[in-house]
């Protein structure tokens, strides 16, 4: 590589995308910049470019997911990769195959990239350590959902420009939300400040007690959190949590923590609203807000494909470890 080419190459050395918690701002910027070029590809008459030709991407989804899986599938196909899906139901995972067995199978199948979602936090690390393939975490337990964090950052930046000093409210079930954690780990390095809001029972204990990460605050009163905010992200309420006694009732939750039109107006004019989907309309977000002028929900879905294309491109362009 000549000096010139080196300067042109991105500062990108990662083999896997497991969590963005240790990423530098440069690395995040590299993904966002590349995503911009991918958005353009998706607008062409032929929505396909060839950089992953001859590569195999295995989508290993051991936990239910439609939109993330389809998003990755479209992303891989738009870059001309061959895509195959292993889902938990209807595969040997149902028959009691262990994760280690699955890793061996994936290895034997010879995938270049494994995109995986798993109900257990840390599962993608387990696979990454034991596999030659590049691993992308598509959501593991309560831990992380790095591609969601990156696509939220890309979408917010499209709406707000530079995120330096911008204040974003994340409202809802933060405790069980890998999206909230990944949003924090992506938006804070880009200069944003985060205000968390939601029921105290659905906040991590340490955070509720004030031991919060840098640039993150907790505000129990949602109206006060939203006042003059630059944007808001509503988290999906996982209804099964209610059975655990963490919530009084959905109606009460919606009244106190739901993003309504009146509440959204407390933010700065035109401050955008996002949601990782799928939405419980009328619970954490009103339909009028979800489909209103401030909503970026549809753009999140479109951008999600582009951001995942960018990651696939960056990973396949990066050399394999010397074995």
């Amino acid at each position: 590589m000549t000096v010139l080419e080196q300067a042109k190459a991105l500062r990108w050395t990662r083999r896997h995308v497991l969590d963005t918690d240790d990423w530098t701002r440069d690395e995040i910027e590299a993904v966002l910049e590349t995503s911009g070029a991918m958005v353009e590809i998706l607008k062409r008459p032929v929505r396909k470019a060839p950089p992953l030709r001859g590569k195999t991407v295995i989508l290993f989804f051991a936990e239910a997911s439609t939109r993330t899986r389809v998003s990755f599938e479209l992303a891989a196909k738009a870059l001309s990769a061959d895509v195959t899906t292993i889902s938990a139901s209807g595969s040997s995972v149902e028959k009691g195959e262990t994760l280690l067995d699955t890793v061996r199978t994936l290895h034997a199948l010879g995938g270049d990239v494994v995109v995986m979602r798993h109900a257990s936090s840390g599962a993608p690390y387990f696979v990454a350590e034991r596999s030659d393939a590049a691993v992308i975490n598509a959501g593991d337990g309560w831990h992380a959902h790095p591609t969601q964090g990156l696509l939220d950052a890309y979408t917010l930046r499209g709406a707000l420009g530079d995120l330096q000093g911008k204040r974003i409210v994340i409202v809802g079930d933060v405790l069980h939300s890998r999206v909230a954690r990944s949003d924090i780990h992506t938006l804070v390095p880009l200069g944003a400040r985060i205000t968390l809001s939601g029921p105290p029972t659905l906040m991590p204990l340490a955070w509720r007690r004030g031991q919060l990460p840098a640039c993150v605050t907790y505000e129990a009163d949602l109206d006060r959190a939203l006042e003059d905010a630059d944007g808001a992200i509503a988290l999906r309420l996982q209804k099964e949590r209610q059975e655990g006694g963490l919530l009084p009732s959905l109606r009460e939750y919606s009244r106190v923590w739901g993003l309504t039109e009146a509440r959204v107006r407390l933010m700065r004019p035109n401050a955008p609203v996002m949601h990782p989907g799928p939405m419980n309309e009328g619970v954490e977000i009103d339909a009028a807000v979800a489909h209103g002028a401030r909503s970026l929900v549809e753009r999140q879905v479109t951008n999600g494909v582009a951001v995942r294309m960018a990651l696939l491109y960056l990973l396949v362009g990066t050399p394999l470890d010397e074995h």
Partner: protein
Amino acid sequence: MSTPSSGGTPRTVLLGADDVRRAVSRIAHEIVERDRDLSALAIVGIRSRGDVLAQRLREALRVHEHVTVPLGALDITLYRDDLTRIGYAPVVHESALDFSVDDKVVVLVDDVLFTGRTIRAALDALVDYGRPRAIRLAVLVDRGHRELPIRADFVGKNVPTRATDDVRVHLVEVDGRDEVELVAREQVIA
């Protein structure tokens, strides 16, 4: 013509600012003579210097012929044939082609024609936008050493080079000056 630079590197100026200006103007005339009917003409530059030259060609056509033709820019990174061999991920820039290339006569513009691999990639990229009636190629410098059966329709200057030489194009919009120089590769600090 040879001018020793500060480091003592053998450096030859192939085209000065005036030569670049005249070359662009001449190519613009050749384009008109070739096709006459300019209604279907479009100009598409290859990033990151071909797009600047494409802009200048369009301006020359506007001045000489009083027509404004559609202008686009292509980034060919994703179409490179060595992507999985080079061991790093080159920066992908956004392409900008907001008109239909269907039935257009597209003049593809690049700064230097060398192995032809960039042009091969650009042809692949371009047909993903539609089916042009014809694609022509304009380059500021043709330095030889083709590895693919590709030739230019419009050439600013043909320059015999050694395969190891470096031809560097500097343009005001990007580099602050207009100049094309040839640098012997052995002297380049790798």
